[in-house]
């Protein structure tokens, strides 16, 4: 993230200057969007989460220390916003059956893909997050720990629980590759 920021700009942001905030938004928008997309995997949802995250940042600006990294702070807020979104979506996912997602003829691969996506969305958001970054994005345990400000042991434990939960749910859906 572009984190060589003018200290004065950050101070103005903390004081509530909207021009300073817009300048920060323009600099960090793309990076935060890419990060959120990795978590939610949908462009429309990523845009909503991005707006929510920057709104939360503005609302919580008094808690930001201008001597710290704005990028890291923003990424943490965006991660929390994305997880909140996954949490909101989860109860609905639990009511969906495979048949609900099938509209007309689809390939076997597509039906299986949708079933896997549904099974995955049933995991608790914090497990989805770590599992996405590890298995889909191919990040190492250390990289995930650094990005999420978690101990490596917590990352390993969440990944193990995520994989276990997903295997269980896929077996329930009859997916045994």
């Amino acid at each position, binding site marked *: 993230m572009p984190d060589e920021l003018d200290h004065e700009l950050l101070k103005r942001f903390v004081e509530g200057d909207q021009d300073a905030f*817009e300048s920060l938004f323009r600099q960090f*928008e793309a990076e935060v969007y890419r990060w959120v997309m990795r978590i939610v995997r949908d*462009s429309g949802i990523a*845009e909503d989460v991005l707006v929510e995250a920057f709104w939360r940042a503005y609302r919580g600006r008094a808690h930001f220390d201008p001597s710290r990294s704005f990028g890291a702070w923003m990424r943490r807020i965006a991660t929390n916003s994305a997880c909140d979104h996954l949490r909101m979506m989860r109860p609905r996912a639990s009511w969906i059956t495979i048949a609900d997602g099938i509209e007309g003829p689809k390939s076997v691969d597509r039906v299986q893909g949708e079933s896997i996506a549904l099974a995955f969305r049933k995991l608790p958001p914090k497990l989805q997050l770590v599992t996405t970054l590890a298995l889909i994005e191919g990040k190492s345990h250390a990289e995930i720990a650094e990005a999420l400000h978690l101990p490596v042991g917590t990352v390993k434990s969440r990944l193990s629980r995520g994989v276990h939960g997903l295997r269980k749910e896929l077996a329930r859906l009859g997916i*045994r590759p």
Partner: protein
Amino acid sequence: MNEERLRSLLCSAFPKPESDKPSRDLWPSIVRRIEAPTAWSWIDTSVAVGAATGVAITLAVLPKALLLLAYHL
């Protein structure tokens, strides 16, 4: 099912996102959010108090529910 197979299934279910930037300028939406009045009505307060009371009673009656709650949070 080994982890490699699981990884490949997940990658096929969640393909790499194509867009790497928002489709529109999101700044006006953020400004609207900032300028929207914060509505905190007595209904919000009573729902929050009710939910907190419900959780407290559940935990008092069923302390093991804390483990379930911790798993889902």
